[in-house]
């Protein structure tokens, strides 16, 4: 698509904290322009005080997610041509997270939930042991691989209705992390983890609506992992392992 040098975008950007308002800026339209390019242009040329977060700009670090025209997206890999409506954009902070200022949200609660879901690997081998052999084609390794590419951007968390209804719900990202570890044959904290992810603030709160699957920029399906956790916790409860 060729874009005339004079074309401009009208961009409404959230300014403030939980309470605030949108301010509209005019930004030159460029070819192959991303939403992050637009925000950066505003910060460098029009509004030096604008708060936002980014690091890698290539879809690896997971720090630049924002709400663009009502949907949570990774802004560095979202082209303006894909999301602008009549050359207009509305950019807001991620939903379901406290706003620090403008487009920057406080991710502490989000990552604390990963810790609560026992998202840490607990191995038992030492440097003196041989490497663990994990068959690449095994069912568990494939299940772990399906969820392992999460970059922790928070898009799924911001898109989940259950997180909005139940602020204590661990959310799709933390549960997806737990699911990858549940399928890690080297991990030795399995019962502890299942105990942590069961319950009405855990996997059992999920309604399988699938917004997380639809919006995950890495095409991960947290809902599938959560369904797996429900099955495993049910089996563990039947065996009396969760008591």
């Amino acid at each position, binding site marked *: 698509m060729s874009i005339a040098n004079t074309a401009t975008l009208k961009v409404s950007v959230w300014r403030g904290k939980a309470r605030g308002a949108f301010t509209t800026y005019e930004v030159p339209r460029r070819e192959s322009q991303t939403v992050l390019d637009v925000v950066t242009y505003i910060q460098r040329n029009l509004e030096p005080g604008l708060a936002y977060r980014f690091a890698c700009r290539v879809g690896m670090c997971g720090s630049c997610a924002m709400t663009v025209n009502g949907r949570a997206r990774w802004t560095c890999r979202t082209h303006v041509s894909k999301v602008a409506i009549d050359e207009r954009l509305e950019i807001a902070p991620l939903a379901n997270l406290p706003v620090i200022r403008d487009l920057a949200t406080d991710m502490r609660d989000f990552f604390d939930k990963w810790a609560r879901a026992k998202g840490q690997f607990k191995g038992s081998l030492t440097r003196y042991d041989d490497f663990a052999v994990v068959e690449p084609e095994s069912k568990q390794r494939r299940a772990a691989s399906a969820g392992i590419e999460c970059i922790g951007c928070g898009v799924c968390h911001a898109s989940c209705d*259950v997180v909005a*209804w*139940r602020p204590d719900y661990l959310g799709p990202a933390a549960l997806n992390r737990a699911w990858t570890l549940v399928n890690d044959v080297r991990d030795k904290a399995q019962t502890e983890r*299942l*105990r942590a992810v*069961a*319950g*009405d603030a*855990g996997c*059992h709160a999920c309604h399988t609506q699938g917004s997380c699957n639809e919006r995950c920029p890495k095409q991960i399906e947290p809902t599938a992992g959560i369904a797996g956790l*429900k099955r495993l*916790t*049910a089996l*563990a*409860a*039947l065996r009396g392992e*969760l*008591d």
Partner: protein
Amino acid sequence: MNAVGEAKRWYWQRISAMVLALCVVVHVAGMIYAVRGGLSAAEILGRTRGNLAFAAFYTTFVLACVVHVPIGLAKIFEEWLSMSRFLAITTSKLFTIMILFLGLRAVYGVYAG
């Protein structure tokens, strides 16, 4: 910790859903078959009175509802009506008693009535 309770409620809801899926198919198919050429109360009662298979099938249907419905209702009460967990479970238990009583009363009514 409610982990065990939630895990158990989940599988009870799953098992009851499987029973309900079967019951609904049999129920709908039965209705379509039964209403060919019109249907009257006398015709229904003629088929159901003293029919043990019929009574057993619908008793199973009612019991599956009794297991399935309250678990989901409690969640709806909590999330949509912002009820406390205690109130949500208590209210859903009242529904359980109502479904059990009205359901079994209806089965008895068409079996023995």
